[in-house]
Each structure stands twice: as C-alpha cells, then as structure tokens.
C-alpha cells in the first residue's frame, strides 16, 4: 500500500520532462542578474564602439601619415630645388657673370679709332611730283 502511494506521488510529481501544465513560463529574475546583464550589454556596446573608433582612427592615421610623407617628399624636393635655383640666380646676377657677358658681347667697347670723313655738300633734291594724299575727314577725329 505504502509503495503504491509512493509510486503515485512520484508519478504525479512536477518535473521539467513531465510538466503538468505546458507553456512558456519565464523564471523570475533577481536584480543581480539584471545588473550583470546590463553591465555586459554596456561593455559590449563600448567594445564595439571602441573597435569602430580604433578602425576609423587607424585609417585616419595611416591616411595622415601617407599625406604627411607625400608633403614631406614634395617639400624636400622644393627646398632642394630652391637651393639650386637660388645658386643659379645668384650666379646670374653676380658682378662676375654680368661683367663676363658684357665683355663677351663687347657691349661697352669703345672704338679704337674714329674715322673722320669730309661731309659732301649735295643740293637737296626737290620732289615736285609727290602724289597728294587726299584724306577724307571722318567724324569723331
């Protein structure tokens, strides 16, 4: 008798595998679990944001360094070119160069001697048959 009662009780007892009532019954969550969940979710968001920020920042730094390297190279080239041009300009305007060019071009050379010739007295020729140019007056002049 006793054993049959026990068997009945056992069979009638609630178990997850053999629920008395079927359906979705969420468990009551305590405040600790809720706090942990919130914290996890927050940290997850922060991590995601940090990763995104890091990726953007890394891309920007790489782009900046590339631009900087490009500017550096160009500035370097310009500076060296400027040094060369300055040297050339200094030489071009130097007394030495100008003097050399003037001497080579005989720019200031004086005549070794001046030939003196007698002036020829000629009677001016009178041009009598010169065509007359008739100018039509134009308004505005």
């Amino acid at each position: 008798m006793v054993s049959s009662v026990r068997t009945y009780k056992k069979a009638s007892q609630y178990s997850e595998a053999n629920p008395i009532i079927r359906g979705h019954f969420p468990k009551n969550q305590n405040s600790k679990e809720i706090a942990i969940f919130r914290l996890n979710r927050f940290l997850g968001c922060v991590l995601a944001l940090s990763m995104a920020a890091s990726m953007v920042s890394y891309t920007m730094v790489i782009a900046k360094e590339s631009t900087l390297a490009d500017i550096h190279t160009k500035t370097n080239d310009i500076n060296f070119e400027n040094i060369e041009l300055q040297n050339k300009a200094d030489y071009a305007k130097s007394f030495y160069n100008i003097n050399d060019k003037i001497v080579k071009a005989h720019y200031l050379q004086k005549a070794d001697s001046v030939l003196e010739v007698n002036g020829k007295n000629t009677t001016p020729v009178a041009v009598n048959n010169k065509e007359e140019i008739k100018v039509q007056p134009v308004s505005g002049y």
Partner: protein
Amino acid sequence: MLSKLRIRPKKYSLTATMIQVMFLLFAMLIVLKLIQLQVIESGYLSEKARQMRQPLRTFSFRGEIVDRNGVRLAADTTLYDIYAHPKYYKDKPEKMAMLLSPYLKQPEDLLFKKLNMLDEPTIKLAKNVDRGTVIKIKKLNLRGLDLVKKNERVYPQGNLASHIMGYVNMDANLSAGVENTGSKDLEALPKINPIEYNGKGDVIYDNNTDPAYATSPLTGEKLTLTIDTAIQHVAEIELGKMMQKTRADRGTVIVLNPKNGEILGFAVLPSYNPSNYNKAKASIVKNWVLSDVYPPGSTFKIITISSALETKSITKNERLMDTGKIKLKGWEITNYDYGKHGAPGLIGLKYLFMHSSNIGSLKVALKIPAEKHYNMLRLFGIGSKTGIDLPGESAGIIPPPKEWDVVKHATIGFGYSIASTPIQIASAVAAIANNGIWVTPHVIKYNKAEREKRIKSHKVLSPETARTMTDILSASIQDSEAQAGKIPNYRVAGKTGTSRKPNPNGPGYIPGQVFTSFAGYFPAKNPQVVIMVVVDNPKGVEMWGSTVAGPVFNNIASETARILNIEPDAPGLNTRKKGD
C-alpha cells in the same frame, strides 16, 4: 520591463565552450607574447628601436658665406654619385644600359660593360650627377641602383674675391681662405630636437619635430664677411684693366676701413674660380699678398717720417739738405729724379713726399736712433704677422737693430733692406689714418665678444703726429704735378712707391722689373677708407707708382666714395670745370 530582459535558460553547449577556450588561448598567447616583448626581450628591443630611431642626419650643408650686405659668396648644392649593385638587378644589364645612357650621357656600350661586371659587389657608374637627372633616373624604377647624395661647394660670384674665399675639398680635407679659417663656424650645425626616422628612412613626425629642419638639409652657421661685393668688384676690374694695359705679372688692391680694421675689398690678380681651384696653377691659388714679401719702396717713407716725428727726431717744419745723391760706404744712393732736378737743396717734408726724395728720407731715418727706429717699425707691424683671419701669412723681414749699419739704416728710410707684405703696409698706413691706433685687419665680421678676443689694437702714434702726417701727405698729393691721389671732391693723403724687384735666386735685383704701389687714405679730414695698390712687374716705358698704381687708386677711391656715400671733405676739388 522585465519581459524585455529575457535571459535564455543556460544550456550546456560544446561549441560555445570550444569558442571560449579558443578565445582564452588566444588571449593567453597575446599575454605571453607581450611578456616576451615587454619583459624578456625588453632590453634588446629598446636598443634596436633606439638604433632605428636615432637621428640619421649624416647629410648636412656647409654654412653660407655672405658679404657685409648679405650677398651670397659661397653656398652648397646637392650632387649624386651613382653606383650599381648587380646582386639586386631586376632588369638585364642591356636594358639598364639602354635606359640610363641618355641620362648619364655615357655611350650605351660603355655603360653595359660597367653594368655587366656581375661579379663585382658595387660598380661606380657616374659621379657628380645633378638632382634633376637623378629624379628622372628614379622614375625608371631600376632595381640595384644606389643614388648617393653628397654636397658640393658652389661660388655664385665666380672668381670674385677668390683669394679671400679660398676653397674647400671635403674629401681630401683641404681648405684655404675663409673656408679654412671660418670652417669651425661653417660646420657648426644648429642644435635642434633630433629628428627620428623609421626603418624605411621616413621622418617620424611628432610634436617636437620642426618641419623646416626635417625637410631641408641641416646647414652650418652663416659666415658674414667684411667685404663689400661692389667695392671688391670695382677693385678687381680697375686692377685688371691696369694689369692688362701694362702686362703686369700680378697685382693686389686692399681696401680697408682704418677705424675698425675691416677689409672692404681684397683684390688679388690673377684670380681663380674656387670651384675649380685644382685646375689653377699653385702660384695663382696661393695668396701671395699675405705670404710673399716685397721691398715697399717709397710708400715706406710714410712710416719713416711718422716714426721720426713720433720719436721727436724731427719736427714737422724740419728742413733737410737734399743733395740729390749721396755716397755711403761706397754705395751711391740717388733720387729717382736726380737727372731732372739734380740737387734741390733745402727741402721740407712736403717736398720730400712730393718728389719722393730718397736722400731726404735717409737723412730723416739716420736722425732716429736705430733702436727707437726699430721699435717704431715693430709698432707699425713691420716684421710681425698682422693676425689677419686668413691662412698663410708671413711676418716679413726686418733685421734686428744690432745688425744695422749706416747703409742699412739709411736704406730702410726709403723702403729697402726690409721686406714686408702688402697687408702690413696697408695696416701701418691705416694706423696713421686712425689717429695713430693700429687695428688688426680682418675679413670676417665678428660679434662683440669674438671681436674683443680676436681684434687687437695698440697705439703707434699720438693723434697729433697722425694729424700732422695726414696734413703733409694730403698737401703733397694736392701740390704734386702727378695725378695720383687726386680724386674729385676729396682730399687724399698718400704716397706712391716704385721699388726694384729682388732676385729670388740670389742677391741683387732683377733688371728692369719693379713693384709699383700707392698707399693712401681719404677723406683727409676724417679718413674712412685706406687703399693699398701694388702692381708687380708692369711692362712699359714709364712704369712708376704714380703712372701705374696711382690711376688704379684714383678710380677705386672715386667708386668707393660713391658706393659708401662718403661725405666730401673738399667739394669742388679736382673737378673739371665746364670749358676746361
């Protein structure tokens, strides 16, 4: 609210566990790697990083040299040497030779021969290639080429002031001129925060990096000279014209400010281009104005008479019996114009200078006790280096007074039996122009502290003696028949000189060869410029200080007065009136 926060029931999942373990292992790997890098290999890696990031500024420019107005006289430029390393070739030597040939201006077959020496680790292809060509070569993207940057000194003003500039050969560590004496400053690089480079050689920019320094070569200190390029040019042109006209061997003009010893012009001809100094003869490259001595001749009479006045051996109104010629211990000494004027009789100091009386000068010299005379000459800087900031200066020759006999003492009076450099005579005359104070002549502009250290000055004459000398000299120039020293609007104090050229291979003089010179200063009222002209061995009929060096002095003095805008002390003097 709680419904939104559903937590699914925990279920054991093998996959999730595996992933967690993998993450854990990965995290542990990272931690282990960090421990390896940060702790175990920390010292080694720090050192390696330091080596990679240390400033690699091995390439730097020598400082510029500029004149007193900032005109550049010397600067650096960049050139390249090109080497090939066969080990790293990507292209065939034939192709490389074909591509490089037009840029290196070398025949293709020659380049191929060079490039095809495959057993050599390094092959030199070309030297001193300009930057423009190198940029074009870089664009060819040829592997195995090494473009080695180097700096080369350039002198934009060409031959101008070549003996002051000197030269520099950085490979052979050779230099001359201010390139030598100023090298410490020219090579002193500015103190900046070190610029760091990454492994590829790119600059690592941080907040302390100055882009101005990072993008241009480090340059040594700028060296400013006392030279005025315009005066230097005028001096070289006028001297050159006279040397061409008289076919002279060599010549020099020294223009200096007597008040502070600054040299405004230092023309030495023949000159050379400092960029190609190795192509010029050694005798031309040498700064003979400082190293070689000559008998100063009659210009030395200025020093003799000054010494006599200062030692009170004579007075400014001294009268001397000029017999035209004299015999001392068998040696006959005559005036240069003895044939024309004979014995002029009693003469004053003005006449002595006007007619360059040797007899008058030797009589004055003999009035000064030898010891006092010697001391005066030493005070004037004769027999000692002036201390000019250029290398290779010699002290000149002056015998000690115990070796002076009457002939030597007498001839010293008119600039023989001693030998001096042109710079010594110029600085001695400058002392008279500077109220009797001798100042070290110099070509580098110094700051106050350096100036006090390097520029010496001492009293040679009293201001009264200096003033008396200036008055006598300017009056003698003005009353002379010669045109030497007569320039419009200014009174010049000065003296011509013509001295025989000593035989370098033995005793005596070279027949027919002379040094002609003129030493003078102006305006006589307030001397601001001293000009010394020496022309060595002019060839012609009348080769005198007054006909060769004098006109050079006049032209340079007139131009210098215009360039420096010196106030005239005698407006209208020596100017041609209309109708003349």
